[in-house]
């Protein structure tokens, strides 16, 4: 580790934090040397976020001590953390869409600097570290990658000595990831310490000098990622061997879901207009839609699920029927099932128990009869889902928000599969879900495909799409690329397409390649 002669920039000793029913951190030791890129690796729920909240002063620890450059400190607030020289880029940015870069940054700074003085400083920092940012641009016109640069520039303006990055690459194209890594290496070379939170093993092996691995709130090991393999890191993280999913050749059946020149005007400020989408999904295949959120993913989900029904031009056909104006309930009756991206608050009602959350989408499948909720049937259905998908919870009467993200996602996927879909639409199936649960969800999607269901997956995770999809298309700036068999596609091509660099395709050319 980074002991030795140099004083550690940050040293944590025996940090513990207990919430009412869980121990989030249990005696964690961690040391970050100056100029070191230090990975904090662990599954969801391993305690990474709690630990970073403690370092950033957002939560007090129950026990343990923090040393900053050799001196003991108590970090009582994020403002104090920033004064010490700790900066953090959150996974979800806190930026205002209607303001410019300068205005956003000046709001976030602790000191008051007027915009005229700030803009040249922003320009200077962005030029120095290869982070192109125009200080006077409005946020809503910027991509997620650009927004992340704004956040990093904001942190660098405070001349930090420790930069914390929480899952920074989850929303970036492969090319943008490389650009970010270059910037981070340059910053580290100048002596900035970086704490890099992630669960992506490839990236950690490429970027980080040292990794501290957390499991169930404890340090399960430290490693030099460059000399480890993905498998050995994963073992530290999960505590066991991982099984890969496999996709066996399979002949798809008839078209179950078809988009024909689907266009949708933009109704919300900062929304995306969908422009002439063509797509076919057949029974027995998994089609993936890659691309970064904000490129029409939300709109496509809404128009497919029926939450937005009016389609002025083009159409949606579901199991051979025109479905563009059908309500979500009618589409469910035709066999379309949908797992939304947001699981708490959309896919499940946080304050309701799991049985009631089955009634949410099960009203058309026998859980409501003659206007009355069938509580007994709902409980039995929930119990069956919990058992089949190995959902960890306090039984079917546990409220949805008492489940961890991964378990809730298993439950929601399981619930929709349990209603026997003919077409399953899944958005970000494993976003923020731990490895074990991810594998299980992916395998269940593959099983569904093998059973003849048409599956459409909208995801930002390229690895995932390449692992489970028969065919792949990219949604960028409201346009959909052609759909190409995954086996013949290079990740770099997809990365290029994610920036919108593909030619528009005619409806005829949208016909799928995989089918004779």
């Amino acid at each position, binding site marked *: 580790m980074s002991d030795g002669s140099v004083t550690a920039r940050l040293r944590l000793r025996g940090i513990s934090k207990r*919430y*009412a*029913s*869980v121990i989030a951190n249990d005696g964690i030791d961690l040391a970050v040397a100056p100029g070191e890129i230090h990975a904090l690796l662990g599954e969801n729920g391993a305690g990474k976020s709690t630990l970073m909240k403690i370092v950033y002063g957002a*939560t*007090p*620890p*129950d*026990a343990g*001590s*923090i040393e*900053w450059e050799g*001196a*003991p*400190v*108590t970090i*009582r*607030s994020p403002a*104090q953390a920033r004064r010490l020289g700790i900066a953090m880029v959150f996974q979800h940015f806190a930026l205002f869409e209607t303001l410019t870069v300068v205005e956003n940054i000046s709001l976030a700074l602790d000191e008051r600097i007027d915009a005229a003085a700030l803009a040249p400083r922003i320009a200077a920092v962005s030029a120095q570290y290869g982070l192109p940012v125009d200080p006077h641009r409005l946020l809503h016109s910027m991509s997620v990658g650009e927004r992340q640069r704004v956040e990093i520039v904001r942190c660098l303006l405070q001349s930090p000595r420790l930069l914390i990055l929480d899952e920074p690459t989850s929303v970036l194209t492969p090319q943008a990831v490389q650009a970010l890594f270059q910037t981070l290496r340059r910053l580290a070379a100048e002596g900035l310490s970086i704490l890099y939170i992630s669960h992506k093993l490839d990236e950690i092996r490429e970027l980080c000098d040292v990794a501290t691995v957390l499991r169930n709130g404890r340090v399960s090991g430290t490693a030099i990622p460059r000399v480890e393999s993905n498998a050995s890191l994963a073992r530290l993280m999960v505590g066991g061997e991982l099984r890969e999913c496999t996709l066996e050749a399979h002949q798809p059946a008839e078209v179950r879901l078809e988009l024909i020149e689907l266009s949708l005007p933009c109704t919300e400020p900062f929304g995306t207009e969908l422009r002439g989408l063509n797509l076919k999904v057949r029974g027995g295949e998994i089609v993936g839609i890659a691309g970064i959120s904000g490129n029409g993913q939300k709109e496509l989900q809404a128009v497919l*699920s*029926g*939450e937005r029904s009016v389609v002025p031009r083009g159409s949606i056909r579901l199991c051979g029927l025109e479905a563009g104006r059908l*309500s*979500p*309930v009618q589409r*469910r009756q035709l066999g379309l099932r*949908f797992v*939304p991206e*947001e699981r708490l*608050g*959309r*896919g*499940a*009602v*946080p*304050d*309701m128990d799991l049985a*009631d959350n089955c*009634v*949410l*989408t099960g*009203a058309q499948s026998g859980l*409501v009869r003659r*206007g*009355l*909720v069938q*509580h007994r049937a709902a409980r039995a259905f929930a119990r069956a889902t919990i058992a089949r998908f190995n959902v960890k919870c306090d039984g079917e009467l546990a*409220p949805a928000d*008492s489940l961890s993200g991964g378990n809730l996602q298993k439950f929601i996927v399981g619930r929709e599969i349990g209603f026997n879909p003919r077409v399953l639409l899944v958005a970000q199936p494993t976003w923020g879900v731990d490895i074990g649960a991810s594998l299980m969800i992916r395998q269940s999607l593959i099983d569904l495909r093998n059973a003849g269901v048409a599956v459409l997956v909208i995801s930002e995770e390229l690895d995932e799409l390449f692992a489970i999809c028969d065919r792949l298309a990219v949604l960028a700036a409201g346009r959909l690329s052609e759909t190409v068999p995954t086996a013949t596609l290079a990740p770099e091509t997809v990365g290029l397409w994610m920036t919108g660099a593909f030619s528009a395709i005619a409806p005829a050319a949208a016909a799928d390649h995989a089918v004779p």
Partner: protein
Amino acid sequence: MRSLERMSWPWRLERRVKPSATMRLASSPIAIGAMLVTGFVALRAIGINPVAAFRVFFIEPVSSLYGIGELLLKATPLMLCALGLAPGYRANVWNIGSEGQFTIGAIAGGGVGLYLGPAIGRWAVPAILVAGVLGGAAWAAIPAYLRARFRASEIFVSLMLVYIAQLLLSYMVHGPWRDPAGQNFPQSPPLPDNAVLNPLFEGMRVNIGFLLGLVLAGLSWWFGRATAAGFRMRVGGLAPAAAAYAGISERANLWLAMLIGGGAAGLAGICEVAGPIGQLQPSISPGYGFAAIIVAFVGRLHPFGIVLASLLMSALYLGGESAQVELQISASVTGLFQGMLLFFLLAAELLIHYRVLRVSPMTRVGGPA
């Protein structure tokens, strides 16, 4: 800045992993306790012996059979209005105009009683009750329509309609419906004998309205628990995005919530006019429709909680009246207690989702370097 930090409050609020079931039950009693303590201090500050005042306020009004009848009588409109509001509040539909729907219910039911009552014999009581419900529901339909059609805020529309309803009542009793034998007082003739709600018991004034309230509480509980419509309303209130995902119609929830709220308030209105008042007059409510909003929340939007809360609020009304008579305290003392109760209730609600945490000394040893 630094000195401020050093003096920092050693307590912090931390979100509970699960909402506390104990606090869910205890928050209303805590709020009532805090109201009593603050009231004690406030009364002492204005030079009144709080112990004697509490006696006058809370004990004396209910120390006779007649007093208990009054308690139930005053609880009736509060209970009915609040039971009507609660499903809407759970569904994120904010009907603030219960008072107006109460007034229109009274006008509609009273009108039927005055002009059709003599002709329909023993059907008069059911007829006026139904007319009251329909009148209140119709008045609530206005904000429902405007919100569904034009996205007008139901909060403002229903509130403004309160004043229109009151002016309408005033017009009716000053003009077309004024009692010719009433020595020019602005009031209607008394309702005919077959169109009034008689007391349930000798020596009390409480009428069938109270029983209707209890029945409505039972129905409301069943509606929320067993029916798909009740389920949809709960989802609409708890998680609007989940409701959209499930295909639950926001509009259907809105209409149902407004019509239930209006109908129940209208029923309360006619029960008041055909009960203790006996005729239409310019003022038929000391603000029951507004107090019912507090009752609904004090009862934690649960039907049985609302029954208890309406009794509590009724006791505050009676206490205020008795304090006014015996201690010559202003009637606004009732408002003071109501306001404090709601204030403490909202504050105590925090404890359900958060716990108070003492920043442990261990983390304070180091101090800023």
